[in-house]
């Protein structure tokens, strides 16, 4: 989108005279939709989570009759009300907190997630910044957020926050490795780090019926998909890997001391990160914007539709995890990562290599 805007701007006389201004304008204009998308994503995802959890737990979730004291029809306005409440809430910074870091932390977390979004394509054209190493860029930016988490936990001057931050640091850094290694299987098959090429390599059908997405390509990529997805769930701190914010143990973990707007940034980022993990999984393994019925419903807006539905489905699975599983313990989590996920992801790489060379 940045390149596209720059092309347009170069046609406009006064903008083409100052390329720096044109560049800033192009970046801002393509960043704005991402910000809006993140906000809307959080609103929708929170509502969905409330409803999904409610239906799984034999409840109705937020309900209401209309605007007013009620939260709208079927509670549709619940998250809007939540957002208004969070925005107008008093902003508390504990007296003993490290003020500067305390204020800085949610922004670092948010920015890490925001810039990662820039590399995420919604279809072959709709992407804020079209890289030729998009998948690598997203993985790299996804790990910037952990600095925010550590800062939040450290600066709060609260023992619970500190525990949350330490757990989070260990967890996110560990699980990044299997997540990255399992994506390597896909990169091996396409020979490219650009999402455009990865998705293009998945066009067509296997065995006549199945779309030739990488998840169906061979048993090892199928395994790699689940490795990546579960490691991704661990990276975004969702149950059963939600140790950094384990409510029953650490009160609220690293964001115990945060309230109001600052707290809502953590929340916004959590849901945006879920979308990124689901989006990358959809692009790398589920054919991204390709239709599940090869040859039909292809291209343009259908692309966005298919991509969004795939991501939404994976987010639904994450919610399903959350409302079904208990939580692991720190050492069990680490053991799982280093003793199971790591060898397994190496195995998938070897397996995919052998399959590609000898069996195909």
């Amino acid at each position, binding site marked *: 989108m940045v390149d596209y805007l720059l092309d347009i701007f170069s046609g406009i006389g006064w903008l083409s005279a100052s390329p720096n201004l044109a560049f800033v304008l192009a970046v801002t204009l393509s960043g704005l939709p991402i910000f809006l998308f993140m906000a809307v994503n959080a609103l929708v995802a929170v509502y969905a989570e409330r409803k999904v*959890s409610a239906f*799984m*737990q*034999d*409840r109705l979730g937020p309900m209401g009759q209309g605007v007013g004291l009620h939260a709208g029809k079927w509670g549709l306005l619940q998250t809007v009300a939540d957002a208004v409440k969070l925005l107008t809430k008093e902003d508390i910074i504990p007296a003993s907190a490290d003020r500067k870091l305390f204020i800085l932390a949610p922004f670092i977390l948010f920015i890490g997630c925001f810039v990662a979004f820039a590399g995420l394509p919604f279809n072959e054209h709709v992407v804020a910044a079209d890289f030729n190493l998009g998948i690598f860029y997203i993985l790299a930016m996804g790990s910037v957020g952990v600095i925010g988490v550590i800062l939040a936990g450290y600066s709060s001057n609260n*023992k619970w926050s500190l*525990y949350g931050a330490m757990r989070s640091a260990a967890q996110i850094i560990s699980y990044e490795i299997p997540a990255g290694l399992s994506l390597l299987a896909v990169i091996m098959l396409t020979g490219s780090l650009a999402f455009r090429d990865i998705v293009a390599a998945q066009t067509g059908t296997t065995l006549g019926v199945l779309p030739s997405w990488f998840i169906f390509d061979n048993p090892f990529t199928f395994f790699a998909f689940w490795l990546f997805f579960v490691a991704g769930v661990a990276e975004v701190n969702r*149950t*059963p890997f*939600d*140790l950094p914010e*384990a*409510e*029953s*143990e*650490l*009160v609220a973990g690293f964001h115990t001391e945060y309230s109001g707007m600052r707290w809502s940034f953590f929340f916004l980022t959590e849901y945006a990160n879920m979308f990124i993990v689901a989006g990358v999984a959809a692009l790398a393994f589920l054919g991204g914007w390709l239709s599940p019925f090869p040859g039909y419903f292809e291209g343009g807006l259908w692309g966005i539709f298919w991509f969004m539905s795939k991501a939404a489905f994976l987010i639904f699975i994450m919610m399903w995890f*959350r*409302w*079904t*599983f*208990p*939580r*692991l*313990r*720190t*050492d*069990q989590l680490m*053991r799982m990562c280093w003793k199971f996920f790591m060898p397994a992801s190496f195995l998938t790489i070897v397996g995919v290599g052998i399959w590609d060379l000898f069996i195909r």
Partner: protein
Amino acid sequence: MGVALEKELGTVHGEEMILNIGPQHPSTHGVLRLRVKTDGEIITEIIPYIGYLHRCFEKHCENLTYEQAIPFTDRCDYIGSMNNNFGYAVAVEQLMDIKVSEKVEYMRVIVAEMNRLASHLLAIGTFGLDVGAFTPFLYCFRDRERILDLFEMLCGARLLYNYIWIGGVSHDFPVGWVEKTYDFLDYFEPKIAEYNELLTYNKIFIERSADVGVIPAEVAISYGVTGPNLRGSGVRWDIRKEETYGIYDRFDFDVPIGTGAMGSLGDCWDRYYVRLRELEESVKITRQALDSMPRDGDVHAAVPKKIRPKAGHVYSRTESPRGDLGFYIASDGSDTPIRLKMRSPAFTALSCLDEIARGWMISDVIAILGSLDIVLGEIDR
């Protein structure tokens, strides 16, 4: 000691930190404060501080008539109020040599077992919540709610019933109550399988609870741990069987004990599973009692006009959902007891926390505390 953990992690020692868990913490099951010494995430010492909910129950009772003390027993273990009423009523009746009518005996057993169901549901649900599973908690509450509805129909209260009186009960079962209770039991029995599917045999749940917080039988006995916590350690001890009170000897039921099926004998999973199996037993008892209960009779027939036990003292014990609930009452012949002492099963269960949870991680301490199923109202009294 968390031997398994030590084997896994080796012995690493850093600087120790003191951490206060509670009194405002989501998982302390009331206003309990644990002063915990931690080495990283590993606990080296736990000191429980109690008394945040102390309401001078025993001292109050010295200034109240015998029947006025009943609402106070409600407020001790507010999760199993019926059983507390029952224990107290049995003690005073023993002191005064009152024999209640057949019908009342059956009614008491029915409400006490229903309350045991409600209490164990809460214990199972919150234990799930402590290890991070949210949904089983709400399933348990959904079913507990139906029991509370039945109690509301029975005596107007959902939590503090004041239902079992000395020499009787406050009301007869309302019209349709027995049928509704049958309906509930029919609805509830298949739900136990649902809890098993969702929580009991979940791999992560087993990982979190098996082998964790083992109470060996001799430790449990030396600390005076009773109830499901003791039975979880493989000791078949249930006051309903050992020192039968009321009419419990007429019913056919088992006393489930821990077997160490998933880990070692007496771990959190065993304690959890004993409670789950007791749900089935309580359903069994309730069904039998409903079947053989005499349909008519005055529930106030044996209620004494004036409660003035002759001088003397009594100690009687009953099986509350949490274990051996004892009441010691000393009377000087007046209408108030000169001393009333309540033996709290939750207190003894909490007292062994340091011994069993030392060496485990913070997450495990929360799980162990949940598996002990303490109620602070009863510990502090």
